[in-house]
């Protein structure tokens, strides 16, 4: 499993991610500048958090037209893995690899917090190290993280079990009181129908090192070690 981390102007979680994949898990990891187009050596592409192109126009809108994006679309179409975190999730919706959009938080605040999430499925590569319905705590840090999709798209997501993480209470209750940004159906992370593309607003890479006091995210990356590529 070789990891490629995309670096846009304005990315700021790229090195956090490399610290986890290479530093903690010893996975071969390469930083990929957004002008590159040959990513054929990569198994897992990570689009990290940050403020690509300053979040100008809309979050992720301009990153969509970086040269590396066509290679990422082809990578995904081949069934290889793509993970978008925070700004990376916004980029994946802008480019159409995941449905819907991430828009301004309901209460307009930039939220920097640690929040509980329920893991909806553990039959996927991404979550095989978690229990089904396990409640984990991940950091969130976003101003535009409110998941929105039209009713038909939302129904399709639910019918196909594409929602992987939802905001919840510490006890796992999914309700509007425990929905930090106003996301529809408390959605925090979704996959595409094939399951090889995952986008999520919370930051598992910021909860993978005991030295910084949170380790609930580490299992997500450990599950990648079980894949033989």
């Amino acid at each position, binding site marked *: 499993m070789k990891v490629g981390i995309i670096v846009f102007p304005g990315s700021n979680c790229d090195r956090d991610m490399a610290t986890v994949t290479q530093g903690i898990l010893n996975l071969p990891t390469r930083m990929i500048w957004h002008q590159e187009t040959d990513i054929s050596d990569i198994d897992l592409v990570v689009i990290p958090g940050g403020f690509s192109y300053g979040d100008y*126009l*809309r979050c992720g*809108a*301009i990153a*969509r*037209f970086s040269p590396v994006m066509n290679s990422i679309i082809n990578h995904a179409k081949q069934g290889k893995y793509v993970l978008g975190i925070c700004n990376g999730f916004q980029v994946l*919706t*802008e480019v159409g690899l995941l*449905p*819907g*959009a991430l*828009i*301004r*938080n*309901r*209460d*307009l605040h930039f939220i920097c917090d640690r929040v509980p999430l329920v893991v909806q499925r553990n039959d996927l590569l991404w979550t095989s190290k978690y229990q089904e319905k396990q409640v984990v705590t991940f950091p969130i840090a976003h101003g535009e993280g409110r998941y*929105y*999709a*039209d009713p038909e798209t939302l129904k399709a997501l639910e019918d196909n079990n594409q929602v992987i993480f939802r905001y919840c209470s510490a006890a796992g209750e999914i309700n509007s009181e425990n929905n930090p940004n*106003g996301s529809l159906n408390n959605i925090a992370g979704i996959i595409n129908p094939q399951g090889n593309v995952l986008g999520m607003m919370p930051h598992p890479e910021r909860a993978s090192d005991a030295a910084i006091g949170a380790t609930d995210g580490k299992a997500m990356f450990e599950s990648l070690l079980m894949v033989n590529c």
Partner: protein
Amino acid sequence: MANKYHARIYVTLRSSVLDPAGVAVESGIKQMGYQGVTGVRIGKYIELELTATDESDAKTQLDQICDRLLANPVIENYCFELTQLATNH
């Protein structure tokens, strides 16, 4: 023959999308004392100049630019006004 056009592009949130910034501004307007103001929605205004063979070509280019970049059709609508600036022979 190439013509130069000036475009004024308006990008607005779809009516189904909650606009919390619009709600906040509306409450500010009411604080000012204008109790009769409702329905505040905040959008974007973009100007650009472009070269095209004719008005139809300019509209085609603008539609593509808006659909792919300036507006996100999942959450936004757009419209534009086009003015011809000059003709280059």
